[in-house]
């Protein structure tokens, strides 16, 4: 049974390095793998999903939402966010290059909804996107995680 999922400071990586889109997903998802929330199979599934369905996961300018279907590869519902020091191309005509990767992993079709709602509210505000893209330090990451977990406060 999941407790209400939260974003931890370790799951927010700022100015991470990746040389291509596959690496960007791997790097962004690493805290979830390290935290045993997901296995490497889930990372592979996220990459395979882009190969199969195309780069539609780039859902806004510069923003990719890495995800796959809920599966046994997800032990605990979680999210991770990474900004990239050097943007990478996913092959999306409208929204490349990507400098912001959000990873979503859910144990079920519904377990991620409350945290996703909070992240969506955060991303709705262009000011927040600007703050996130300019953020550099662990202190910045902490503020961002707190702001997202706090919802609209």
């Amino acid at each position, binding site marked *: 049974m999941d407790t209400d999922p939260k974003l931890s400071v370790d799951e927010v990586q700022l100015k991470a390095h990746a040389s291509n889109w596959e690496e960007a997903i791997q790097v962004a998802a690493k805290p979830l793998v390290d935290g045993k929330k997901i296995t490497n199979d889930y990372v592979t599934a996220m990459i395979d*999903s882009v190969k199969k369905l195309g780069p539609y*996961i780039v859902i806004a300018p510069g923003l990719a939402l890495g995800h796959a279907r809920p599966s046994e590869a997800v032990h605990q519902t979680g999210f991770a966010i990474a900004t990239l020091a050097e943007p990478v191309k996913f092959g999306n005509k409208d929204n490349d290059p990507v400098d912001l990767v959000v990873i979503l992993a859910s144990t079920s079709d519904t377990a991620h909804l409350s945290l996703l*709602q909070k992240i969506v509210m955060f991303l709705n505000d262009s000011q927040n996107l600007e703050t996130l893209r300019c953020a550099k330090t662990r202190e910045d990451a902490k503020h961002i995680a707190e702001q997202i977990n706090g919802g609209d406060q």
Partner: protein
Amino acid sequence: MKIIAVCGLGVGSSVIAKMNIESILSEEGKDEVDVDTVDLGSIRSAPADIYVTTRELFEDFPEEDKEKTIVLTNFVDKNDIKAHLDPKMAELENK
């Protein structure tokens, strides 16, 4: 009226679109509009008045549903979604 957001898996981007569309409809006082999500493979068994999707997936849409479909390039910008959604809804309401 029924709106369905379509994505590759039906758990990520379409859910984000659904959340934003519901929030827009709520601001417009149109809470009676039903918003749902579906993966592209299940679209034929999910009839709707309006479909919402991305450019990549639109190309794979069933031909007969394309006319009902709004193509979004930005799933998190509510102003952009609203600019696409409102005219489409007005078009349907005036039919």
